[in-house]
């Protein structure tokens, strides 16, 4: 039999990706179709369908680029079912940037048909309407706090009013921690002096959701950093990082937000930009990718990204002081995808936890498998997110009292898991535990 030749270049078809900033050939052509990525992909593990695998998704994106596929459900569904968890990038020997390809493909979909229906409403409301605007975000925080404090929460829970919400939102409502009165961005001073000799200056990136729901973690981050000789500054003009916009394909909005942040932070004298949310950290480190086609901002983005560090990464880099006081806890650690796969930060949080006297760290099997949170994935794809959450909860080792991690999205998702299982596990940020140890030290 004559050997057929797969020579698509001769066909000269038109790419289905017609808008700027499309997935580029350099990225998908490095995939050699070896299949190493299949078994680490959470959606392939659940479904066994190669359309929902990294290799399949890259192949579909390549085919659409080459004009062999239209931009219809066949590409859109796999591209949006992807968690953007990057587990595939960790194993891929060829270095295929699956995450960037997916995000760029989503950008094309966003151009082609801005999301509709429930998903569209959520996207429009949050991604364009609220997150990019610090004041509106603060309002949401205040409203939530009012809701929780005023007794309205109790009333609506009793009255069954919440039943009108979809299950996943209802669960979110149930686990939502009490929203602090003020955000860290508002309450922290612009410049916080370090303790002892100054090692460096770190600008704190406070984030959006992080700073509404978990602003105490931002305050803990500032305390821990200054405790270790870092002068902390809090640039007041900063806004949300744009990660959720990138994940949803709204790259233009994300670029505008990124430009603003780049300018604000580069104007400061900080040696580092420190962040405690894995998803945001990855987005900040990947700002240059957003500006591939903008030489001016690309260069600035590179300067910016070179300074970004996750808090655990920074503490290990500048050297942190092991706490003296004990925190007696048996803890397991969950690797947030955007910390371990996207930022390659794995050992540092463990090093921090192990340094705390009294902490017993029990490794969780498959600690780096996605919990299903993935930005707003748990709202847009509740079914898959729910399956992954179940697997995550199954993996929690017997006898631990606490699950530590480094991402607010995962914290909320895993809180839902704890709620579903009706256990009393604590869900904490790594830095909160270190902070607790230092604070006890002070009290001793």
């Amino acid at each position, binding site marked *: *039999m004559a050997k057929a030749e797969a020579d698509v270049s001769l066909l000269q078809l038109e790419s289905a990706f017609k808008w700027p900033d499309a997935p580029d050939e350099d990225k998908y052509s490095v995939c050699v179709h070896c299949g190493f990525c299949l078994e680490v992909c959470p959606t392939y593990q659940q479904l*066994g369908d190669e359309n929902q695998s990294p290799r399949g998704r890259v192949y579909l994106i390549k085919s659409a680029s080459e004009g062999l596929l239209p931009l219809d459900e066949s590409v859109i569904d796999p591209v949006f079912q992807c968690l953007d968890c990057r587990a595939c990038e960790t*194993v891929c*020997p060829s270095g295929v940037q699956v995450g960037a390809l997916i995000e760029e493909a989503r950008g094309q979909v966003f151009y082609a048909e801005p999301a509709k229906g429930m998903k569209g409403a959520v996207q429009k409301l949050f991604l364009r309407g609220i997150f990019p605007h610090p004041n509106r975000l603060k309002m949401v925080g205040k409203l939530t706090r009012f809701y929780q404090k005023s007794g309205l929460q109790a009333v609506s829970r009793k009255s069954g009013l919440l039943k009108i919400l979809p299950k996943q939102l209802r669960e979110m409502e149930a686990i939502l921690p009490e929203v602090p009165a003020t955000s860290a961005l508002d309450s922290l001073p612009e410049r916080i002096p370090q303790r002892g000799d100054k090692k460096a200056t770190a600008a704190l990136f406070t984030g959006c959701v992080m700073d509404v729901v978990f602003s105490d973690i931002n305050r803990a981050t500032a305390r821990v950093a200054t405790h270790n000789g870092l002068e902390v500054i809090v640039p007041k003009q900063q806004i949300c990082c744009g990660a959720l916009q990138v994940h949803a394909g709204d790259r233009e909005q994300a670029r505008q937000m990124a430009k603003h942040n780049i300018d604000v932070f580069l104007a400061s004298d900080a040696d580092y930009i420190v962040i405690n949310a894995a998803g945001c950290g990855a987005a900040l480190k990947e700002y240059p990718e957003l500006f591939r086609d903008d030489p001016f901002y690309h260069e600035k983005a590179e300067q910016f990204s070179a300074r970004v560090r996750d808090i655990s990464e920074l503490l290990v880099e500048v050297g942190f002081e092991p706490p003296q006081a004990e925190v007696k806890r048996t803890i397991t650690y969950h690797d947030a995808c955007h910390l371990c796969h996207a930022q390659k930060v794995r050992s540092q949080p463990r090093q921090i936890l192990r340094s705390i006297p009294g902490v017993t760290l029990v490794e969780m099997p498959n600690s780096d498998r996605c919990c299903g949170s993935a930005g707003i994935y748990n709202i847009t794809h509740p079914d898959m997110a729910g399956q992954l959450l179940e697997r995550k909860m199954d993996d929690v080792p017997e006898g631990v009292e606490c699950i530590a991690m480094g991402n607010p999205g995962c914290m909320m998702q895993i809180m839902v898991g704890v709620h579903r299982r009706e256990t009393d596990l604590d869900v904490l940020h790594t830095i909160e535990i270190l902070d607790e140890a230092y604070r006890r030290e002070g009290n001793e």
Partner: protein
Amino acid sequence: MDKLEMVRELTNILGPNRVLYKEHQLLAYDCDGYVAQKARPKAVVFPVTTEEVSRVVKLLHEHQIPFLPRGAGTGLSGGATPLNGEVIISLAKMDRLLHVDFDNMRAVVQPGHINLQLTKKIAGNGCYYAPDPSSQSACTIGGNLAENAGGSHCLKYGVTTNHIVGAEIVLPNGNIVEVGSYMGDSLGYDLIGLIVGSEGTLGIATAITVKILKKPEAVKTVMAMYDSVEDASNTVSDVISSGIIPAAMEMMDQLAMQAVDKSNYYVGYPTDIAAVLLIEVDGLAAGVEEMAEKIVHMCQKHHVRMVKVAESDAERALWWSSRKMAFGAMGRISPDYLVQDGVIPRTRLAEVLAKIADISRESGLRIANVFHAGDGNLHPLILYDGRIPGQTKLAQETGSAVLKVCADVGGSITGEHGVGVEKLEEMRFLFNDAELQAQLAIRSVFNPQDLCNAGKLVPKPSRCVEVKRAQQLFQAEQAVYDGFQEHTSILSPAYKEAK
């Protein structure tokens, strides 16, 4: 039966979520790890039980619709590529570990079970599954059975066929049979021996009984870097003739080293060495130490530039990932690659490598080399760019020329990756028409209508009249075929219970 009707029937058996049939859902199944040839399947189905596989196959058989089994699609010879518009029977969702019997050292898995996962699941009991293809983190045991997969540790422990003792098979007419024997040798013809390595042309394995082994007490891994391939090859021969049987003995050349060193599996090989050897010994703690020392000594005798014993498990693991990821890392240095799988007598290594270098120069295509040196199993990786008109064909021809060299020195055209569609023509380097006919005659016993993975493994002999006659005879008579009715159990009684 038209496609719509077929889809309706398949959906009746499996439900709507386990049948892919829309044109655009099928693209991802165009090919496996061998990308030089592609074709679209008719549909993809995801059964989860033997019964379902049987019902699907019965339906397709009845309507004369071609089909083929697919595991993880990591095959490198196009075995799972649907060149005849087949319905792909994906076994990815049949991935359970059905039974483990630590007393008798057996495990029963569904075909979609991932090779490395088995070792992980039994590691707590100090056991492992020996065959370790480099793709072991992704490939399935069903695919391993079909390809008679090898691996780095097969030098000492043997390839897949030495580890599979029995299997439940859905024949191409949908009947379910069991072949092999849970303990001891099977009676009659060695059917399990026949099925292993048959590349999905004799039926679909739906439950597989394998041997599991106790982990060796100790392991030592030696890395040795050489300025010349010759010195490395001579070390290999020396080690073997000294009577030591290493657990593994692997080699990579400079180009292969460059590719992996660009990946996440960075070791940091010097850029001016010609070859690196990875030699592993295992066994009882005392003996292993001594063997490792002897090996280091032998490396030194052959002018090794640098030789080192792994100091930690982490270092050892890194060295191994570097070796195992070498194929996949080719994307770092080339848009496409085609891997060959030639076997040669170990003693001819240096000579054959020189010839491969000549072929590379003549074709103008770079060739990286990665191999199971201890087995004389070469993997020349031919680097090309499929976007340049004519290069895919050139790469295929170059591969063929390499295999010709292997066959000419008394070797073979495949050590472990199978023939698939890729090496059909090259089968003629090794077999004459009569021999090919004998093989096709066997196929027609199991697969008389040639519906199950047609056109793979054995080329049609040029004088194929007799074979056609034989096939017609079998089709007409069906008698031989009907001999394989659902029948007596020779598999594990415990597994039967578990089922």
